[in-house]
């Protein structure tokens, strides 16, 4: 849909952030991309609150690692790998997106590859995930999910497949928050990033930006700036929340494409289609 471009300027701290949007589906924020802090490690360090990661999620991530480590090791390739990478994920499931929010599934898969298969997930420059609803359940005792994950190395403008784990019947566990043992101290921890995100969100809403309900929606997020050491998925989390505050519903998002690129000037481009 072609609509007029609206420009606005938002004051965040001492800076003015320029934003363009079309009130419907396109937003461009001319600023260094924000990144979700490593909440859990920060909390752990700051408050020294013991925590327990969700065990099914950890288990799912260790299975993802195995699906790659095994084949690569058998070919004599040593892991973890160094380089610049891209990941494509396809999820088919009998379960609905209510149970499988795609960004959280993506994060869980990436976390599974991190450290074990690729040295650092900051070296992941593009990642996509798509969802297809299965009308019939594979079997009574088998998982409802069929997952395919492909890992590519980026060489110049091209990409080379390193390994693909195709059509794996595995019970997918999206990213979950850990449990904190000390429920008195940690419950409400506010981060600066969230305040900045909310300032941008409020300004967009005041200027008429609304995301209509319904779907399926394909979400594209492109990050530019000093992003070498910023995780793709942790940047995406900030802007996904921003979009949710503008009306986006995770259950309608059937596809997400994320990419980051080094650039002199920071910019985040959001597009819904």
């Amino acid at each position, binding site marked *: 849909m072609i609509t007029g471009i609206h420009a606005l300027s938002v004051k965040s701290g001492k800076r003015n952030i320029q934003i363009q949007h079309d009130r419907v589906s396109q937003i461009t924020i001319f600023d260094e991309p924000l990144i979700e802090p490593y909440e859990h490690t920060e909390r752990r360090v700051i408050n020294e609150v013991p925590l327990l990661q969700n065990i099914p999620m*950890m288990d799912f991530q260790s*299975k993802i690692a*195995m699906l790659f480590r095994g084949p690569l090791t058998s070919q004599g390739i*040593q892991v973890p790998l160094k380089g610049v990478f891209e990941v494509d994920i396809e999820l088919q499931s009998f379960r609905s997106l209510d149970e499988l929010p795609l960004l959280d599934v993506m994060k869980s898969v990436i976390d599974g590859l991190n450290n074990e298969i690729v040295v650092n997930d900051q070296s992941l420059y593009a990642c996509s995930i798509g969802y297809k609803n299965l009308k019939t359940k594979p079997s009574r*005792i088998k*998982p409802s999910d069929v997952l395919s994950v492909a890992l590519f190395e980026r060489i110049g403008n091209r990409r080379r497949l390193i390994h693909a784990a195709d059509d794996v019947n595995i*019970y997918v566990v999206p990213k979950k928050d850990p*449990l904190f043992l000390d429920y*008195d101290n940690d419950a409400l921890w506010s981060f600066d990033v969230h305040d900045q995100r909310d300032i941008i969100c409020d300004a967009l809403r005041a200027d008429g930006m609304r995301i209509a309900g319904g779907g399926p929606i394909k979400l594209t997020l492109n990050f530019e700036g000093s992003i070498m050491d910023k995780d793709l998925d942790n940047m995406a989390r900030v802007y996904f929340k921003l979009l949710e505050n503008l009306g986006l519903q995770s259950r309608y998002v059937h596809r997400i494409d994320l990419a980051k690129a080094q650039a002199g000037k920071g910019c985040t481009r959001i597009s819904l289609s």
Partner: protein
Amino acid sequence: MAVQIQNLSSFLVKNSAVPQFEITPQWFMVQRKIISEIYPDFPDPDTFRIYLYLCKHFDHSDKRCKRSKEKISIDLGYATKQPGAQRLMNYPREVDHALAWLENNKFIKRTNRNNHQPFQCEMLTAPDFVPGINAFIEPAKVNFEWYSLKDSNHGYIMAPNMAFDDRILKKSPSARKTWTDRKLKTLLMLYAHTWLEYFGGVDPEIVTVDSGGKLVISKWFCCNLKCSERQAGDVIDWFVSRGLLKPVECYFVQDVYYGDTGRCSPPAQAYEIKIVLRPYYLIRHKLESDLMKLKKGRMIL
């Protein structure tokens, strides 16, 4: 198809002067990886049980499992020594086969220097399974050692030795009939999800009992066990009836265990009451951790 625990109230743990649980110091480590929807089961019941036996008798300090074939065969009921005999005349075929399979597939490494020395082995980090070539592959450089496994996200189960007594791993038809593979796997998986400081027993998200006595079991858990909810439920019900798992009514604050309703007053914060399954055999050092200091006094043990 949910399974109903008959007479739930008679099984619910009540505050008592008599110990309700057995607290034991010895535990052993089994990798979580071996029980999963994407990992094959051991080829036969012998190999599975002999593997568990080796895990249990592995000495982490010198990285050896010094159990000879003779000892394994006798402990697990594959053979008996004739009166007056110095040693076994022949090793049972199943034991030979199982050990060879475990060695060939890199679950263990033989450490006796030659065949004249008694069998001994080192436990290795469980191999990765590669479906494409239908083979096990040894993961590079992860020691079968707690910190190393944890660092590289190879989860492990801490299982009390007493819960996996040699008797239940025996070859005898009655032991095999009572202690099926599924029961052993389910019990291991329940210990994988037992976090006393967070849940007071098995994570209620994995399995809990509703107020009407119905077992609520996570689908994820059943998938890992490669069985239906009904099959997992029957096994858990059996554990409850045998007192190996005891339902306890507990207070939870923000999804974290606070204390047993029969042992402490309700917490000051907003709380929920959940029925948690607490294994009968508990590992002592888990109860003596710093994290447990506050909660131990609120727990019926």
